[in-house]
């Protein structure tokens, strides 16, 4: 079974999804266990895959669907799944995050989208299938199909919430379709000029035919990047994200917020490194001089907008936009360390965003609101929940030893070596904004002060909170355990970052990225 581990990653969720759809109407309670079990299976397949990649000599494992392997047939005849360190790591993050969210979603789904458990878990599992597939596929068109699988399930999952969610989703559909269509168009250009859809095949043809100066290829690159940037909610194209994630049901936003944008950044890395190749992607001043400045604008604007929010969940959605800027910047400073930072930040940001969204979900469930005013005194009621939430916050700020510190570290190093000072200033600015944001939250959660600054309870003697507020009221264990797990993952990834970074370095080594400056 081990040689089929790549197939298992999506076979489990796929069959699980169909099963959910089949049993969902009659016995809704079965859906949750099915989802958790199938994701556990997928997780096993994912770990097995990573293990195989590590064991393999070339640091990558290929899997040819339908048996159309590259030895007997021309490359690109069938669809190839190619797991290298980059893909395998991010796939593992996707499946792991989804697994935690699946456990977590038991109560929120039953409460927020009653009687829709069947459709919800079906879409949930298919979303995971799509996202995990994106990380592994070695075929540019298959990537499009999987992007659309992820997008469509996303639309469904978000719109299952309120009418507001539907209105927000409509924007998402329009922008998402523009993004995906641009990607499709770009792939069409690439196919027209290279005659293959296999990612490695495309790279080979570009090198062999000297397509670096081809106008069509350049436009293809621009379209693909544009499409991916829209899909990842890069700043000027972010309009769909905050509302969609804000109004989405808790379980949905907990799943989508950590994963969708990150996976799209993965796609961008994949496109620049594997498909178009380093020379093509980073030698053309048409975009290499433009995108870093866009990144700066994106980070600064998104951070500023986050600062203006008075609602935790809304604030977090803007933080996602800012973090997207970080990672795109990490790619486009075009430096070895920048890439490490970018890839590591995909992993760590997924974990810490998960942590925060899980925390926000619990707040929402307890307080019926995520507005700043509703946060007072939460720490007394739910110390463990809020502890986990704070860990996520520290990681976003970038305090050691959480993983956020290490990714930021590599990003800064990359920016410094590439002498992209404007990027570093933007990073610093947004870090400061995050400090302000999170300590504003911590102040409210921890200190029980009101918006106007008056204090509930006085400094001396016991806090004069209403009696009902002082007792210990922790979240349900199905919600608390995933939160604490994600918080500990944030710490563990941080502490053992060296192991992950080694894998990323092994992945990046063949691309011969610039490691230093001309200093």
């Amino acid at each position, binding site marked *: 079974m081990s040689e089929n581990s790549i197939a298992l990653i999506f076979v489990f969720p796929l069959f699980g999804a169909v099963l959910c759809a089949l049993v969902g109407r009659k016995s809704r309670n079965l859906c949750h266990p099915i989802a958790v079990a199938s994701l556990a299976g997928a997780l096993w397949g994912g770990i097995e895959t990573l293990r195989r990649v590590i064991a393999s000599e070339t640091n990558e494992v290929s899997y040819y669907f339908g048996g159309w392997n590259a030895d007997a047939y021309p490359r690109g005849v069938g669809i190839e799944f190619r797991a290298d360190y980059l893909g395998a790591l991010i796939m593992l993050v996707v499946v792991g995050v989804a697994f935690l969210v699946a456990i977590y979603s038991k109560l929120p789904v039953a409460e927020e989208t009653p009687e829709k458990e069947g459709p919800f878990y079906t879409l949930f599992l298919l979303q995971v299938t799509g996202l995990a597939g994106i990380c592994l596929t070695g075929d540019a068109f298959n990537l499009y199909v999987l992007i659309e699988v992820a997008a469509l399930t996303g639309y469904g999952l978000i719109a299952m919430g309120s009418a507001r969610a539907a209105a927000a989703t409509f924007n998402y559909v329009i922008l998402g379709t523009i993004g995906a269509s641009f990607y499709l168009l770009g792939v069409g250009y690439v196919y027209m000029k290279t005659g293959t859809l296999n990612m490695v095949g495309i790279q080979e043809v570009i090198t062999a035919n000297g397509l670096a100066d081809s106008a069509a290829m350049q436009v293809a690159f621009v379209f693909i990047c544009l499409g991916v940037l829209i899909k990842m909610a890069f700043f000027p194209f972010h309009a769909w994200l905050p509302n969609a994630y804000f109004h989405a049901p808790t379980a949905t936003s907990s799943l989508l917020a950590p994963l969708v944008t990150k996976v799209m950044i993965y796609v961008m890395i994949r496109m620049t490194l594997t498909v178009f190749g380093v020379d093509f992607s980073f030698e053309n001043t048409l975009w290499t001089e433009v995108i870093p400045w866009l990144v700066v604008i994106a980070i600064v604007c998104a951070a500023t907008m986050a600062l203006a929010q008075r609602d935790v969940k809304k604030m977090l959605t803007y933080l996602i936009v800012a973090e997207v800027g970080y990672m795109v910047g990490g790619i486009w400073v075009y430096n070895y360390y920048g890439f490490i930072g970018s890839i590591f930040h995909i992993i760590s940001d997924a974990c810490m965003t998960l942590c925060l969204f899980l925390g926000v979900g619990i707040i929402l469930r307890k307080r019926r609101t995520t507005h700043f005013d509703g946060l007072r005194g939460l720490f007394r009621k739910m110390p463990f929940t809020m502890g986990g939430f704070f860990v996520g916050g*520290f990681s976003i*700020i*970038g*305090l*050691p*030893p959480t993983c956020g510190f290490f990714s*930021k*570290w590599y990003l*800064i*190093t990359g920016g*410094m*070596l590439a002498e992209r000072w404007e990027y*570093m200033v933007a990073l*610093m600015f947004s*870090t*400061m904004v995050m*400090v*302000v944001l999170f*300590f504003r939250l*911590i*102040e409210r959660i*921890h*200190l*029980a*002060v009101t918006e106007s*600054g*008056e*204090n509930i*309870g*006085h*400094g*001396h*003697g*016991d*806090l004069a909170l209403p009696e009902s507020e002082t007792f210990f009221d922790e979240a349900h264990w199905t919600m608390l355990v995933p939160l604490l797990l994600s918080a500990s993952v944030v710490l563990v990834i941080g*502490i*053992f*970052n*060296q192991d992950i*970074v080694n894998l990323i370095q092994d992945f990046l080594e063949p691309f011969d990225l610039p*490691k*230093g400056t001309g200093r």
Partner: protein
Amino acid sequence: MVAEPTVVNDVRPLIAVLTPMVAVVAIAWSGEKRKNLREIFTLLAGLVQASVVLSLTPLVLAGNVVEFHVWQIFTNVPMLLRVDGFGLIFAAVASVLWIATSLYAIGYMRGLHEHAQTRFYSFFGVSLCATMGVAFSANLLTIYFFYEMLSVSTYPLVTHMQDKEARKGGRTYLSYLLFTSLCLLLPALSWCYVWLDNGQGAMDFLAGNSMSEQFSDTTQIVLLLLFTFGFAKAGLMPFHSWLPNAMVAPTPVSALLHAVAVVKVGVFCVIRVYSDIFGIEVLQALDGEQIMVWIACATIIISSLIALSQDNLKRRLAFSTIGQLGYVVLGATLATKQGTAGAVVHIAMHACGKITLFFCAGAILVASGKKYVSELRGLGRKMPFTMGAFLIGSLSVIGLPPLGGFVSKWYLVLGALERDYVWVVVVLLVSSLLNVFYLLPVAVRAFFRNENDNEEGEGGLKEAPWQCVVPLSCTALGCFGLFFFSDVLLSLAGL
């Protein structure tokens, strides 16, 4: 680096760092209901920690360094604990004074019936863990970890009162510390990390100083500035104003913050960077390094002048602290062996003196509820022990023999003369005079002014609880002790 010290692997540094964390778990478990148990745990942890730290002294005095490898953070950069003389001085000061502070805190907190005492003791423990970590860090990254940990873990202590003022103070505190550490320090660290590609291990405090080979003078100055201001806990102007703002905290916290843990961590880090990352020789050879001396001197003078105008006793002490920290930084910037030694010893001397002063301020608050210098008339007769200790602490901070403060100032003067900075000597003298002007009147007013107005309840004024008085008397005696045993400190500091 004269001779390579022998490296001894030992788990004791880790034990010293982790003891407070274990205590935190025990404290949190005991909770508000079992007060006595909780406080016993606190004291016990302090005793264990102090004895572990002190047990390392013979090893270090014999010229060894003690190391413990925790885990690998980056390529070439492990999380490494290492005890050398300098670190040991700081760790010993911190752990011994923690015992005193814990004892004092018990009296203070119970005396004022403070809320959330469990939280208070817990985070106190965490801060101590971070302080120990800083003292024993073997490289820049490890030190950064503990530095940030200290920033965050003292936040709940600063905002302990939970009122508007505490909130404001907490905000200023964190925004200054995190802004500097994330925006100045992190790039500087990352800049240093770049060397690692050349296999130099330049972040390690024991590694040879390759700074001058790697960077131009301008770059080095920029790095120097980034580091010096990045460690904003050192309280150098213009990043000093978190310190007076953090005065909203309960007095034991202020004592810990301003005498032992936080500010000393700041200057400790600065000295580490100056002497172990840049290296004395490099600094001496560096053009434009004098700018740091000027900044330190300016901080000393300006803060002393501001201290003169403060009526709130704790704020006055806070500005005094800023000035005293300036001494330490000055010693480091002098870039001579004697200057550095002076700086190191001054950490201990000032810690002992200033904690006494804060203890006294707290004891006065507990006993009489008075916060302002102008209210203290005649208090010396009611609280002879407290005010006596205050006088001793003041004299030590001013730097009169036979008190500890004298020794460190002496070496600072020697260091300045070695570099032919006569004007620095002048600055030192002027600032000592200013110290006299802002510290002595407090004691004088307490002892020699009659109380003009008899207010309600004044008659019943007594000494503070014994848990308060005992520690402050001990630390006051410590000021004497440090003078007489200063040779141990100096030999640890490498002289």
